[in-house]
């Protein structure tokens, strides 16, 4: 924790647990028995002893299927979900020890977040939505409009400043969501499946936008997704999450080349098939193989590997 690398580690999470239960949790989480006992009593363990570090300027992707606890995990970082046990250190500050006021400041100045369902204010137009975080900080109207305009231009939404969210398409709404996060000029950006609700073409476009923006602004990003392809495209490092645990952590290459277990192997085989099926270049448009994969993977019981094998 206090080694020489401390300065370029922006986020450090140690032994994080989140247990959803209707009674107070006072147990020693180290014991497997205690856990099982708790789960038998109806508790849900969403995050199970997760540890990782994110370096400054790095994109860290957490990949997992729905119900794997990845959304809960990312919400723990800004304490939208209160962790049960563990340690979250951002820029050397222990987030879990902050009082209400410190937490407020932390959320205002240190983090920004992009949501799958956008979370835009329906009664405010684009510029007001983008400037919302600045308004919460108490920035004057002139300054926040100016900064909001810059951010809007950055995500390619000039001319839409006075439209309302209901008048925009999904992709455009998410651009507003991204602009609202960028305008905060925080080092840390949390993104919870930001592109999952978009159709494949737009998703691709948004991924490219994010890659371009990341080159310009160089944020530290924690990115949650259920799509391995997206994880590989965007991530400098990534983790595969299953039932609240990190199954494997590493660079996308490491994970593609050495899947830690059979579960990861299934994802990887599927993704490899996708890439080799249409030559070496990345799939820019939803090819047949991609559609086949999507169609199969919507059924939860269908093994992903089987879909991949078929394409081969």
């Amino acid at each position, binding site marked *: 924790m206090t080694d020489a690398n401390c300065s370029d580690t922006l986020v450090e999470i140690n032994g994080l647990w989140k247990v959803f239960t209707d009674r107070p949790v006072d147990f020693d989480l180290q014991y497997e028995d205690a856990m099982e006992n708790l789960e038998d009593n109806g508790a849900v363990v969403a995050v199970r002893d997760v540890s990782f570090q994110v370096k400054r300027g790095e994109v860290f992707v957490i990949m997992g299927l729905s119900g794997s606890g990845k959304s809960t995990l990312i919400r723990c970082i800004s304490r939208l979900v209160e962790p049960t046990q563990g340690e979250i250190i951002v820029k050397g500050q222990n987030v879990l020890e902050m009082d209400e006021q410190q937490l407020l400041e932390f959320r205002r100045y240190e983090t920004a977040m992009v949501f799958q369902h*956008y979370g835009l204010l329906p009664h405010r137009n684009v510029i007001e939505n983008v400037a919302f975080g600045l308004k919460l900080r108490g920035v004057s109207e002139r300054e926040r409009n100016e900064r909001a305009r810059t951010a809007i231009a950055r995500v390619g939404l000039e001319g839409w400043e006075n439209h*309302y969210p209901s008048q925009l398409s999904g992709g455009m709404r998410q651009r507003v969501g991204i602009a609202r996060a960028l305008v905060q000029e925080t080092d840390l950006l*949390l993104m919870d499946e930001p592109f999952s609700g978009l159709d494949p073409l737009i998703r691709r476009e948004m991924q490219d936008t994010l890659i371009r923006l990341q080159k310009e602004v160089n944020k530290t990003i924690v990115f949650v997704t259920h799509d391995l392809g997206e994880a590989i495209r965007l991530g400098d490092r990534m983790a595969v999450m299953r039932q609240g645990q990190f199954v494997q952590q590493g660079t996308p290459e490491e994970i593609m080349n050495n899947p830690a277990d059979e579960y990861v192997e299934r994802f990887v085989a599927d993704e490899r098939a996708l890439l080799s099926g249409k030559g070496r270049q990345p799939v820019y448009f939803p090819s047949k193989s991609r559609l086949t994969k999507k169609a199969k993977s919507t059924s939860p019981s269908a093994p992903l590997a089987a879909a991949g094998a078929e394409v081969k």
Partner: protein
Amino acid sequence: MFPEQLHYNVAPFIDRFVKWLVSAWGPFFDGLSNLVLQMLLHIEHFLKWLPWWAWILIVTLLAWRLTHNWLKTILPGVLIFTIGMFGLWEVAMETLGIVIIAVLISLVVGIPVGIAMSSSERVNAVITPILDAMQTMPSLVYLIPALMLFGLGKVPGVFATVIYALPPVVRLTNLGIRQVSREVQEAALVFGASRWQMMKEVRFPLAMPTIMAGINQTTMLALSMVVIASMIGAGGLGEEVLKATNRVAVGKGFEAGWAIVVLAIVIDRISQAAAKSWEPPQN
């Protein structure tokens, strides 16, 4: 029959309680009564001071601004004109004055209570049965304590009206705030909204269309209660109805009843249109 030995009445206790209230809190109720009366007189004075044609003009302009539909614009003015035509202008203004002040008091009390209910399950659990009781109790019952605390006249009329008209605005404020999307609130929270900012910037404005529906309901109930409150001397259109009923003067009764309906329609339409202007824009 029910055995005599098991008879037990709470009526004497309630009587004694109200009597105690009157004697121990007399100055307080006098002060309150005076305050409300002064406000009422000012409002009434203003309502009567504004010439009838100005009223029609204001209502018509308001209707045009809110609806942009020529039939809906013309109608309220014409309807109001009939009130004057029947010679009921002045009493209608008295009724309107009581409705306005009763609604104002209801909002000042009701909206904060609704907000408190939306943010605390405990408050919700305590207030809900009280609201239920207020709504199921026959409205005439409210006249008695209002009468004892404030005597005869307009002020007890105002208070009886407030009790009767209060529940919808409380309920719908509560409901409106609870209905605000969790996702929007989560987003506001993560950007560092304090409790106050969350209420002011997110929850309250998004609940506003529902709250406006509550205000509309409260206004309608106030109007219907004002008629009943004329039995304890609140005056206004209700008194005309009462007199007509006592004399079996069907024609006069119709005219007064008509004027009440007209007030109801006009207030309802205008407040509904105002409520719509609070909704977030759709495509």
